[in-house]
């Protein structure tokens, strides 16, 4: 068999190609319309800063405090957000550099509180005290507040910590809570004074990316160990099931326990894809389908009506035996 005879020398049969295309288009449109009418599509209400602050005031203040003291995941993430080291998985990540700068203390806490200070004058002096304190003093207050929040209680909508040396932090944390519960914090986080549009949702989402989203009941089935993205947020619907192989790779113990699980999983996934993409040129692998034999089912009719030399020989041998 040469390249030429693979492409030519076969009997042609009449075909209405336009009818064929309109037919497949009709089938897809019918299926899609039917599914849309019957099932609409899966939507799970998003987690908002307002809903999280309202439902979990103490945990919300802990998120704010971790952004302020640099212990939060984004505060110490590393590239592309800042020069931290907490989430650096590869030298590629370091080389890419800081592309979307975030100073968690300033961007997630102090700037929004600065805006809130104009409508709540009590915030201004506390904010000034914090800004003017030395770094070591700020750290002492933050450490005390970390302990204090772990034993805090809720009284009349305010988070109250046991007595301690917190400086202006109780005022600031409760002001942040008030801002969060008001629904105004998302706007403060996504505000860019250079433009009036709010296309960039980065800070709003990254503020929520730690404990708020990780502990949300709605995300538990979407977590990595539960095969993440291939599950829908609303039960019963399909999701991105075509990501099954990359998601499966994430489950490999060597990947899951690696220091760089994301980089490793995506790179292995790419190798899988490359093997598929270069199938025609990979010796032996490109002969697998011939030996698997499923083509005999696909071309069953053709092989039946065009018995080859082997089939003819077998028949000829069988005739005398019969």
């Amino acid at each position: 068999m040469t390249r030429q005879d693979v492409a030519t020398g076969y009997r042609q049969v009449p075909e209405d190609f336009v009818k064929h295309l309109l037919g497949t288009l009709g089938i897809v449109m019918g299926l899609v319309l039917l599914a849309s009418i019957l099932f609409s599509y899966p939507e799970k209400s998003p987690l908002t800063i307002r809903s999280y602050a309202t439902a979990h005031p103490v945990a919300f203040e802990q998120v704010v405090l971790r952004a302020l003291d640099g212990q939060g995941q984004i505060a110490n993430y590393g590239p592309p957000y800042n020069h931290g080291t907490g989430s650096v998985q590869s030298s590629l990540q370091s080389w890419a550099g800081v592309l979307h700068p975030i100073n968690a203390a300033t961007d997630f806490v102090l700037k929004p509180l600065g805006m809130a200070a104009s409508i709540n004058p009590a915030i201004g002096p506390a904010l000034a005290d914090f800004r003017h304190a030395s770094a070591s003093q700020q750290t002492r207050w933050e450490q005390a507040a970390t302990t204090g929040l772990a034993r805090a209680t809720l009284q009349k909508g305010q988070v109250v910590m046991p007595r301690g040396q917190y400086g202006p932090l109780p005022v600031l944390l409760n002001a942040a809570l008030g801002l969060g519960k008001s629904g105004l914090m998302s706007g403060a986080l996504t505000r860019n004074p250079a433009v009036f549009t709010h296309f960039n949702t980065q800070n709003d989402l990254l503020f929520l990316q730690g404990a708020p989203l990780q502990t949300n009941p709605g995300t538990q089935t979407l977590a990595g160990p539960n095969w993440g993205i291939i599950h829908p947020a609303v039960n019963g619907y399909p999701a991105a099931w075509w990501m099954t192989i990359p998601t499966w790779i994430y489950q490999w113990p060597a990947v899951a326990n690696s220091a760089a699980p994301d980089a490793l999983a995506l790179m292995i996934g790419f190798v899988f894809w490359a093997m598929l993409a270069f199938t025609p040129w990979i010796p032996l692998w490109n002969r697998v389908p011939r030996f698997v034999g499923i083509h005999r089912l696909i071309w069953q009719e053709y092989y039946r009506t065009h018995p080859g030399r082997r089939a003819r020989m077998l028949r000829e041998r069988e005739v005398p035996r019969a």
Partner: protein
Amino acid sequence: MFAVANWTVTSKRLLSGVMSAETWLPTELPEYARGFMYMLGSLTASSFAVLVASGIVLAMNGPASWSYNGAVHFVAATHFWAVQAFFFFMMLHLWRVFFTGAWRGGRGLTWLLGAIALLVAIPTAFTGFLINGDLYSQWNAVQAKDGLNALGLGWVNLTNAGQMFGMHVVVLPLTLTVIIGLHITLVRMKSVVPPYPEADTPALARGDDA
């Protein structure tokens, strides 16, 4: 040779084959290329056409319009089911072309373009999920960002809905359209791969590569 070649003449010769009605509107096909197995590619392309059409309606109405407008919400549902159909038929098509060794006879590039289309379709669909704006969008944006950041691709900011809108509506679908277009053009130019020869033909050991 290169210096004296007339590029226009060469382009004209190439395009006259590619753009002819004979290429795109065949009235006959090889006898082995019949049945449901040979509808899978067209079903995938049809799903893509439905995706583009519904996507244009969504883009014309703007981000989040599906959250407060019932008609746009319905179009968003068709967009969701069309992507399910697209991947479903693409996977069936992939199995059919794999098990029939469809790269044979100089069709390696056709196969490679199909594989690239699959690769590009994944972020195209993913960015669509990200701009829907629900919990699934939030969760997958923050989860997947670590993978891209780790590979040094942090300029693709999954948490920036504005950038994702541009990627999903312009960059990725245009790229995908070009790749799918080239893939289908090669399929039409080279026709579909013929059956494997019978098991004892002398050419058994040859012809499996591209």
